[in-house]
């Protein structure tokens, strides 16, 4: 992964299994969101590939890439809802574009998706008329519009109060369990990581590669790498070590 000649991360190699909640974690600026952009097909990696069910994404022709993209749902950091459309139109657009359902069924599915994220009754609101947390949830509803196999979340709990953030975590787990979808979550919120993650990868900004891969709880207790342990214990190891040195 690189911007021009500036390499952010190299030698990343990991597998996400179907139906698991996979967390991409790391400090600020370690390249988590860039990795997400590579995975969802927004930005081509400088070298390497992303493979879905044995099918190469970046090695495929554009039509195949578009088909693969439709199996993914992406929920962006600030919702990224189209401001000139109501919440219902935002969620309905992918359905109108990629399915041949009649308008009434589309509006039923839209209401269902909004109800799933707790926004029933907000169909006719514009994005500028609802709060930041609601925007984020509406973004999740839009990401789910086409019943994707894989849902990506970029920093789902950033900027939310602890209760809303907890609810969003529960929503991610509930959706995974009921839809059977795979969830890929970029986050550095520890409570969230320990609540939802089945598996994770840790990107390190200094060595510019992944330095841990596995269940975060196991990593916290057993990782041989001090950076990972420190991160997952909120710097507690570091503080203890410094205390011992003094």
């Amino acid at each position, binding site marked *: 992964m690189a911007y021009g000649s500036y390499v952010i991360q190299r030698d990343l190699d990991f597998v996400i299994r179907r139906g698991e909640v996979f967390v991409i974690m790391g400090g600020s600026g370690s390249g988590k969101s860039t990795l997400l952009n590579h995975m969802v097909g927004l930005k081509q990696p400088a070298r390497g590939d992303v493979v879905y069910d044995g099918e190469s994404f970046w090695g495929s022709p554009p039509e195949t890439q578009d088909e693969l993209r439709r199996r993914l749902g992406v929920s962006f950091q600030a919702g990224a809802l*189209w*401001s*000139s459309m109501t919440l219902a139109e935002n969620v309905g657009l992918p359905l109108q574009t990629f*399915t041949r*359902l009649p308008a009434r*069924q589309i509006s*039923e*599915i839209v*209401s*269902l*998706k909004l*109800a*799933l994220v*707790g*926004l*029933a*009754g*907000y169909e*006719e*609101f*514009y*994005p*500028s008329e609802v709060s930041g947390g609601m925007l984020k949830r509406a973004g999740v509803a839009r990401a789910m519009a086409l*019943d994707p196999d894989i849902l990506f979340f970029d920093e789902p709990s950033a900027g939310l109060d602890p209760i809303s953030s907890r609810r969003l975590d529960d*929503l991610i787990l*509930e959706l995974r*369990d*009921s*839809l*059977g979808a795979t969830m890929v979550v970029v986050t550095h919120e520890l409570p969230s990581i320990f609540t939802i993650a089945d598996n994770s990868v840790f990107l390190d900004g200094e060595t510019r590669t992944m330095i841990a891969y596995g269940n975060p709880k196991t990593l916290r207790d057993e990782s041989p790498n001090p950076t990972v342990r420190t991160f997952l214990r909120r710097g507690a190891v570091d503080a203890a070590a410094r205390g011992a040195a003094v």
Partner: protein
Amino acid sequence: MVVARTDAAVSAATLAVHHDSSDGAVLELAGPWQSQHGLAEPSGLLDELRSRAIRHVAFDARQITAWDSGLVTFVLRVLREAAQLGIDADRAGLPEGVQRLVALAEAVPERQTGRSDARPPWLARIGASTIATARASSEGLAFLGESLLAFGAFLRGRARFRGSDLLVVIQDCGPRALGIVTLISFLIGLILAFVGAVQLQQFGASIFVANLVAIAMTREIGCIMTAIVMSGRTGAAFAAQLGTMNTNQEIDALATLGISPMEFLVLPRMLALIAMMPLLTVYADLVGILGGAVVGIGMLGLGPMQYLEQTRDAVHASDFLIGIAKSVVFGVIVALAGCLRGMQSGRSASAVGLAATSAVVTSIVLLIVLDGMFAVILNVLGF
């Protein structure tokens, strides 16, 4: 054909109602219940439940091969209607995922927002738009007043803004606008000369093309065309830039520091346009006269010196000064309309687009109206 129809039947979702007792029914769902295959309409089923006075409904989904949101919306509708009819529904036969999704969808009750698509009556619409117009004009006046105060602060040397910002805006609305101003005024001069030449040649008075072009460019066309170009080019840019700053709360950030956005953002833009508009106008006048000369010399066969002499005799200093004076006023209008719409802009991408549009419309309307007023007043005063 027959084969195709059989295939369609196999790959479609099916629904059968099985009556297990006098007032109970089991809905048997089978096949792929996915939206891409088309979904069953629950209305016929509900009519049947109603007509048979069913009291209990259960689901049997063992034969379902695949499902997605389509099944969930169907189940939700059946459950909602059943609840209204007082029918008791047993969800245990549904796939576990569907049960959980239905529970999740019902967890937060629908918010009664009282929104409706109904249009208010015409009297109410007239009233609402009158109130909106009145509010917009008072906001416009307030903005004018605040910008005057900011200008006063500038004259007293107390205005807070960065000199480098002023230079950047000057560069953007001065030198960088030369290209388009050159093109437009050269062609306008050329067109004026053409139109004049066709008429004046009939009387053998083609030398007066020089008078026509020179007077029209210096008094009217030079400043008004420059102002219109600047309103589309720079006024819209001001509105879009300030609107986006408003969206990103950059204007709020200035205000919380006690820095007046009027001084910091609006003043440099106004000063830059007030300084650049007269210069651009003089430049446009000259390029327009050059355009006229190309037609006069090239097409009408007038000598270059002859054309120049005729132009010098035709234009008085007052013509030039009137054009320049108007251009200063037009500069203020373009800058104010752009900044006003930008500061008023809502906080979304579409609102910023609206702000840019409305900045250009506002400034062009004001430009033309003021130009007409100038023409009448100058005529009365005898200039």
